[in-house]
């Protein structure tokens, strides 16, 4: 790829990356502990769940949709997974169940949006409540804790000295990048978000691909649930609250437009890391969690403002 092409494709992400690096530099200066290998791995590990969920969110937002239900799906998949684990289902099967619950919940969103013609905001808002309720009902409101070592290794183990969640995250991003840039699903995802009517008139099966995208978002929420459950050695029916907002923030900071049709998966990764690094740094600096919220919110707003200003330069 020639550099000019690269810049026109990834110019926006390049900007975000510089933002991230500047942020890291500042934190390094403020607190030397920040730039140590254990801490950086720690950041990566803590970012991994949001980063993975944000992949699904990016697909959804590229289609000009939104998925508010990811956090609740994390909780619901988590408790179902936990219960089948405790019932003695082999780990691989239990994982499949966890992913399956996520996938199915996502597909229900997809069907409501395509065949039910509901706006994504409404159907996933409903699902947010339904899945949360289902998680509470299923677990009778109590956490389900205590799993086998082999399951917990998924989150606590390391491969080549790198925490497993980080490896899973990297694999998910590599796959997602491939899907978005090299496959039919990816191309149609952009096309649907850019102009649904034109996509349909060009022969794209809009309903099918939209449903798939919401299914994917649910599936990745299921994956997030697995890592979360393994890390905490417990599944909480109240887990995942506000995850949707973190995922949306990572996506938007990463340059994906809420209008649809535009976005890059690397941007989302950088966006997720900006959020993760910021949290970590503020913690290291001993900033109170109240202030943290405010700072993170401001960063989201600033990122989008800068983005809009840069876009306007084009005229």
């Amino acid at each position, binding site marked *: 790829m020639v550099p*000019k092409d690269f810049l026109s494709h990834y110019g926006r992400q390049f900007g975000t990356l510089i933002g991230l690096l500047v942020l890291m530099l500042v934190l390094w200066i403020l607190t030397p502990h920040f730039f140590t290998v254990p801490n950086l791995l720690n950041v990566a590990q803590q970012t991994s769940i949001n980063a993975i969920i944000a992949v699904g969110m990016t697909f959804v937002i590229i289609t000009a949709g939104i998925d508010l239900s990811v956090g609740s799906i994390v909780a619901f998949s988590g408790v179902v997974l936990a219960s089948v684990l405790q019932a003695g289902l082999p780990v691989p099967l239990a994982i499949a169940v966890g992913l399956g619950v996520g996938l199915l919940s996502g597909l229900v969103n997809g069907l409501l949006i395509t065949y039910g013609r509901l706006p994504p905001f409404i159907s996933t808002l409903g699902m947010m409540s339904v899945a949360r309720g289902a998680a509470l009902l299923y677990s009778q409101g109590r956490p389900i804790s205590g799993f086998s070592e082999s399951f917990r290794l998924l989150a606590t183990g390391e491969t080549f000295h790198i925490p497993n969640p980080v490896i899973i995250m990297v694999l998910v991003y590599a796959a997602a990048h491939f899907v978005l840039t090299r496959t039919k699903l990816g191309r149609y995802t952009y096309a649907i978000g850019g102009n649904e009517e034109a996509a349909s*008139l060009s*022969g794209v099966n809009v309903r099918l691909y939209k449903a798939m995208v919401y299914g994917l978002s649910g599936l990745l929420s299921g994956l997030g649930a697995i890592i979360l459950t393994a890390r905490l050695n417990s599944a909480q029916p109240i887990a995942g609250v506000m995850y949707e907002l973190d995922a949306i923030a990572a996506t938007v900071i990463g340059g994906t437009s809420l209008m649809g049709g535009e976005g890059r998966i690397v941007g989302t990764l950088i966006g997720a890391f900006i959020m993760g690094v910021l949290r970590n740094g503020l913690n290291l600096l001993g900033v109170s969690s109240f202030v943290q919220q405010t700072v993170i919110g401001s960063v989201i707003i600033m990122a989008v403002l800068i983005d809009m200003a840069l876009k306007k330069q084009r005229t």
Partner: protein
Amino acid sequence: MNNVPMLEMQHIRKTFPGVVALDDVNLTLRKGEVHILLGENGAGKSTLVKILSGAYQKTEGKIILNGQEVEIRGPRHAQELGIGIIYQEFNLVFQLSAAENIFLGRERTNKLGLIDRKQIFESSQKILDNLGVKIDAFSLVKDLGVAQQQMVEVAKALSLDAKLLIMDEPTSALTDLEIKELFATIRRLKKRGVTIIYISHRLEELFEIGDRVSVLRDGKQVGTYPIADMTQTDLIRLMVDRDLKTQFPKQYAKRGEELLRVEGLSRKGVLDNINLQLHRGEVLGIAGLLGSGRTELARALFGVDKIDAGKIFIRGKRQKITSPRDAIMLGLGFLTEDRKSQGLIMTLSVKENVCLPSVERFSRWGIMDLKAEDQAAHQSVQELRIKTPGLSQKVVYLSGGNQQKVVMSKWLCRQADILIFDEPTRGIDVGAKVEIYKLMNRLTAEGTGIIMISSELPEILGMSDRIAVMHQGQLTAEFPAQGATQEKIMGYALGVSNGA
């Protein structure tokens, strides 16, 4: 006209990343003249007027309005300076009524700070009536036809009381009758001292309405001339820098087997018992007024709209087409009349748009062969001479005519052999039109069948083998193109003659 010019643009330069759109362009407007801007697709016409309307900022140069230098800061500022514009692409809010669109952003409020709806609707209705169009100010823009939407745009610009009114291809979506109405309005405006910049690719009409013409070529100025001194041939030569031998280079191909047969096609309230056939190697021209059901027929054939009755046979076999996807699988292609909302995905690149209907052709197990796709896109871009800095340029940054070529190339790339073209040459310059006609010749020679819907009767007469005319949802006549006349077509289109 010895007083100061109404507006002067001096040494205007405008660059975009990778593109020099305008280079040292000068333009002088006299008060009350209709000044034509002429040039090939991508020559820089729209860019030049967008600088006046505040949509773009010039890179270099000076603008002098009524003897004073001005910096046009943005669209609002331009409005305040008395510059109104009708863009090539519509800028209407489809969910709002005509009246609300006309006064969008300038809603007058009453004492309570509420929008004075009554006033808005009344003044809008007055402007629309003055334009001589039958549009109810209350009707939602999305329910209006393209031509009516265009008229709403005109009304919007007029309501501003502009001293300079810019029209970027206002007639490309209009039929002859509506063009007449528009011209009557322009003449009235002229009398009131309004200066007009008028962009169009329809050369015939320029002589009727224009005073002077400025020609652009590749972002550079060729010159400004009184239109009375020019002929069409002169203008074409100035624009494209070569002579065009003929406007309609029709070649008759061998009529082959039947590709498409439609029997008794009906859709309640829109299409009434349509029968037609299309054979390999032929162009079936479909004429008719706006709202006669031409586009609706195309949409029904392509599976966009449901049909209530009727049979469709493709290559002799009866088929049920319930979605565009079905239609495409059967070898149909549909070039829609509205490129912005139906033809293109503005956020995607030239390549991605060109190849969208063919994605399946380039993929196996869902994985795309990007090289093959690149090649195909490259070929299409060359074939239609689409002016773009590269395959990965977003289509939103192409000029209108080049966007239209992208829409057309989608179906060439797909290798569809039953093509439905709805206003295929809308917004395309004279030179490129001839190229598209030649392309149609080549396609028919290769055995493609083309249904061409067009409001330009010369195009229908010049490029069709057979002509069908629609009137109020019915096909009222069908006859060979050779020997037919505009009068004959209009007779059927208006429902005066009765044939079939």
